[in-house]
């Protein structure tokens, strides 16, 4: 049941995309998301697809894994599609009862669905090609300038690192507890929604207890190694911008320019 969760799942291979500086990747992904909202025509999406395709091919991540990230939000995409399809006023092209499908609605719905799909694929690629630790290193480094206005960059990054680190552990734990309760006849799969929620209690209580226990142990272990927050901590891996990063930035600027030009036209 938890086997198809790609978010935060790093696909470990050597590739030019994997080797990029995390800061560069994060900034590119961030602007990439914004660029998707600039687009007003289907043809411009072709540029996005081309850019993504290049990124995916050079990353050596099988397309299957990138698409897997879509699974959990498939429902959201579908709902967005349907709402846009039915709620947009305009020229009616199909009508059945109170359901009216307009030309504008169809276009808008298609737009939204494509936008969401590309958005998720783009962000999945970031997490697929960057290990969570490196990713948070990048975030920490990017947040550093905001430290002066009181953003606790190191603490935030540490919290994220720890959270990411424990996702697989907690998932494993969930599966274990689930199996143990199933062995005692618990049923997590059938019944109506109220019953199902109720049936989760035997799973959630032990899970929370174990999460708290782990948090306690971890805090103790960190303190035992003299952890006192971010001040004066040095790091093992220094982030450095290489030639590959310039190449990636250059390609991305070309992509961005194309999108902006297509918008102005």
């Amino acid at each position, binding site marked *: 049941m938890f086997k198809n969760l790609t978010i935060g799942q790093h696909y470990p291979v050597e590739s030019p995309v994997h080797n990029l500086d995390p800061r560069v990747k994060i900034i590119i992904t961030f602007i990439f998301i914004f660029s998707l909202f600039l687009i007003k025509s289907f043809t411009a999406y072709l540029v996005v697809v081309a850019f993504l395709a290049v990124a995916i091919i050079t990353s050596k991540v099988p397309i299957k894994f990138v698409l897997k990230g879509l699974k959990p939000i498939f429902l959201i995409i579908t709902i967005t599609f349907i709402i846009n399809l039915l709620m947009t006023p305009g020229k009616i092209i199909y009508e059945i009862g109170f359901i009216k499908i307009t030309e504008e609605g169809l276009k808008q719905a298609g737009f939204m669905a494509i936008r969401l799909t590309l958005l998720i694929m783009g962000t999945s690629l970031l997490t697929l090609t960057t290990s969570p630790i490196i990713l948070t290193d990048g975030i920490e480094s990017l947040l550093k300038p905001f430290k002066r206005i009181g953003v606790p960059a190191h603490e935030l990054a540490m919290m994220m690192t720890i959270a990411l680190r424990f996702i697989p552990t907690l998932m494993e734990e969930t599966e*274990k*507890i689930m*199996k*143990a*309760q*199933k*062995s*005692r*006849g*618990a*049923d997590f799969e059938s019944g109506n929604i109220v019953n199902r929620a109720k049936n989760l*209690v*035997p799973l959630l*209580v*032990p899970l929370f*207890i*174990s999460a708290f226990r782990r948090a306690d142990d971890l805090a103790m272990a960190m303190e035992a190694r003299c952890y006192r927050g971010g001040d004066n901590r040095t790091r093992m891996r220094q982030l450095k911008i290489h030639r590959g990063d310039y190449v990636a930035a250059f390609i991305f600027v070309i992509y961005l320019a194309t999108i902006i030009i297509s918008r102005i036209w």
Partner: protein
Amino acid sequence: MSIKAENIKYVYSEGTPFRTLALDDVNLSIEQGDFIGIIGHTGSGKSTLIQLFNGLEMSTEGKILVDDIVVGQDKKKLRNIRQMVGLVFQYPEYQLFEETVAKDVAFGPMNLKLNQEEIDKRTKEALELVGFNYDRIKDVSPFDLSGGQKRRVAIAGVLAMKPKYLILDEPTAGLDPAGRNEIFEQIKKLHKISNVTVILVSHSMEDIAKLVNKVVVLYKGKVHMQGTPKEIYAQSEELVRIGLGIPQIAELANELRKRGFNIKSDVITVDEAKEEILKEIRRRKNV
């Protein structure tokens, strides 16, 4: 009446680079009333095997028969099978969740949709079976108990379902020697008085030697040896080769024999060893 495994094959993560063969052509038969020990190294497939027995996992190939019912063929019978085959996981105390001990133990019987009277009766019986005074323990929060006590409550939670087959996965992991002995004593007693079939999964040779009447050794997903504890421990070199030790006392007996003492080869408990050594001393004195 028995649990049978027929040509079981189990593959993890089929179709990905992480594919592993956890079980390979396993054939086993566990008869009613047996007390079986399954031993194997970490990763030998023992945990996977026991999860197949109560239908938590389904084998890739082959089938499991519990009292002639094929596990997993009929999804509706799964609850039935899980009642018959009680599975106590490693560190079972982590599955406790209710406010009181009695409520937690009653969770299993409640899922079986028994009437309240029967649920109460079973809860009481199960808690007494694991050595608790029912009236004193029933309203205590399970989270106020010690580690060993929690574990006994968790085991009672499975016993309350009245399984015909009881599988315990490393039931004494992480307990101190006193707690360990207590658990083993209770399992032994349980097997004696209720005639439940017990399957004990462990890597501790010492424990298994004392308790079981049959040992199954798993190695790299295959049944590597099976037989009585004496038969198995006689092949000490093979056991050591596949990364499993033999009971310390058997090792001592082997060593003494190697040095020319006349001690028989199938010693597996301290008492047997004591007898043998005393016999040998007397013999030497008489010479």
